[in-house]
């Protein structure tokens, strides 16, 4: 009989509304979450425009080395890479930001490639990896968590132990070990072969290391659901496992999965960038925000923009996703306990 019960009576009096609709409505009303969502959409849209920018505006292919290249700015011909002529004349420095969208807006990297165009392309890669690995991770975790929680017994035991093992493996060490190996061999799974340079390698690595983080809470939810009356009565009425899983269990764990998704995308984006930073994520000449930061480290003292810009992009994207995720949690599953990070 606190104030919350007042509002809950209010809701029930208004007549039944599907919980999905009401959650979505609540999410829509959460202004920061919606702003986060739109910022994320803008980042995605801008990154998707990368080829247009590279082709029509910058007139540069950001995947081809342009070491001897020149371009004209304010009527002067400028070398993209400039040989140092001072002192003992050591070193070659790429041009810095011109702040001109049609010519090396953020300058060039050590291969004379347009950093801004690479930043946009890198965003496509990072977002693709973050999103798809989060989807794969949540899907796999949902299946494993639900199966473990629902069937219990030896299946649960085996799955839980696998989760324990992955859990106890320091997370970056696991990712690094897998990367070092898979970047040499690629993945051979039956007839399917994934090349070592493929983006699928980091996607699958990142997806798999986080499975326990999602699967464990889901398993807990399913175990408590299983004890609830409606499931027990469904079991009692002789419904098949498949039917119960699809009709009863899944709708009840779905909100939790939805809450996990934006946060997982943010985690995975950060993980991808960290692996790429350690040069064991996305492989060159493909770019991701992490690889551009890595490229930029070699230029940190002369051209800091190369390393700083992608970090800002990562931060903006992750912030927008985290705010969206907070909103999704408030709307769909207020009790969900999530860490801010992994």
């Amino acid at each position, binding site marked *: 009989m606190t104030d919350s019960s007042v509002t809950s009576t209010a809701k029930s009096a208004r007549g039944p509304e599907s919980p999905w609709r009401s959650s979505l409505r609540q999410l829509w009303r959460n202004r920061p979450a919606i702003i986060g969502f739109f910022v994320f959409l803008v980042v995605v849209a801008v990154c998707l425009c990368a080829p247009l920018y590279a082709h029509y505006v910058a007139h540069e292919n950001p995947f081809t080395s342009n070491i001897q290249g020149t371009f004209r700015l304010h009527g002067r011909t400028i070398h993209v890479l400039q040989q140092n002529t001072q002192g003992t004349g050591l070193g070659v420095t790429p041009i810095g930001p011109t702040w001109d969208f049609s010519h090396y807006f953020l300058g060039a990297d050590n291969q004379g490639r347009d950093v801004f165009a690479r930043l946009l392309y890198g965003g496509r890669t990072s977002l693709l990896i973050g999103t798809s690995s989060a989807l794969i991770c949540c899907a796999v975790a949902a299946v494993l968590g639900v199966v473990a929680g629902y069937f219990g017994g030896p299946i649960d035991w085996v799955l839980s132990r696998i989760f324990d093992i992955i859990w106890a493996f*320091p997370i*970056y060490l696991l990712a690094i070990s897998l990367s*070092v190996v898979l970047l040499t*061999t690629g993945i051979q799974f039956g007839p399917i072969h994934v090349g070592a340079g493929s983006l699928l390698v980091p996607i699958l690595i990142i997806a798999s290391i986080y499975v326990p983080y999602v699967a464990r809470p889901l398993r807990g939810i399913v175990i408590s659901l299983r004890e609830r009356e409606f499931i027990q009565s469904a079991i009692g009425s002789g419904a098949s496992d498949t039917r119960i899983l699809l009709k009863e269990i899944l709708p009840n764990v779905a909100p939790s999965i939805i809450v996990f998704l934006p946060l997982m995308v943010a985690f995975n984006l950060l993980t991808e960038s960290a692996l790429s930073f350690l040069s064991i994520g996305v492989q060159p000449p493909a770019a991701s925000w992490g690889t551009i930061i890595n490229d930029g480290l070699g230029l940190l003292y002369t051209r800091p923009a190369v*390393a700083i810009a992608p970090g800002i992009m*990562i931060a903006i994207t992750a912030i927008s996703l985290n705010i969206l995720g907070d909103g999704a949690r408030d709307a769909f599953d207020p009790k969900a*306990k999530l*860490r801010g990070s992994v």
Partner: protein
Amino acid sequence: MGLFIVRRFVAAVLVMFAISVLVFLIFFATPGVDPAARIAGRSATPQILAQVRHAFGLDRPLPIRYLLMMDHLFIKQDLSSYVNIGDRVVPQILNAAPVTLSLIFGAAVIWLLVGIAGGVVAAANRGKIIDPIITFLGIGAISVPAYWLGEVVLYFTQSKLHSSVFSWAPGSGYVPLTQNPGEWALHLLFPWLTLASLYAGIYARVLRAELVNALNEDYVRTARAKGLSERRILMRHALRCSLITVVTLFGLDVGALVGGAALLTEVVFGLPGVGLLTFNALENLDLPVIMGAVLYGAFFVVLANAVVDIAYAFLDPRVRLV
């Protein structure tokens, strides 16, 4: 309690066994990693290669090699690196551990202070402007890649502003506490702040959520009805109950960090801790060191889990250890 310890111990041994097997298999599944060719030298003849392979037991079947490695690591404790021949793994880890511990100790103090203060202030000021500000800062802290933040910090302290504001900032590297406590703290200051920013963000957010939940609990209403001050209710009742979650989180985080999860910070700031040791070993494919470091890391994760459970029981009288 006795049973609890036994169960935990058995579970830990099983998990660590599985991890060691996993590491072993991952390692030998990679082409080009056969350490014999690298140990023997660049153009060693097949005979020399065979001798080296034999000397290191690399010509034995995999299970035997595994057992030999475990024997050297745990029983004889003389397992040594494939890269720095004769450099024993156990002392390497023991030498690296103080660096990691120093890093984590300082960072933990900062992130606990900042995180708890942030969470408490945000929860106590719900509905005021300061709450969303702290929440946003927290989200920002967890959304910024830690290694990137470290690099940016290095850029500003070592290059951009080194001649003005940060002329006192030392270069990266580590100075042992026993050698010079002042320099120790000075060298670790920026790594501390960098590492702590992420965790302070996490803790402030988690604690705020826990406090808000706790402040809606019946016992808080009871406490108000008792005529306690809001401050006392917040600090002694809500915070005390929320700390259970924070302590759990703290235990697991510290366990993972001591075990090597501070790797990125160590790499960026060139701190020769366990994370950097492991990372270098992975880059060098130095299996003995990888094996030792990963098991060491896993041990701390497992240990942290157990300690957290004990702490949990200590903090929450409702919990019984079974």
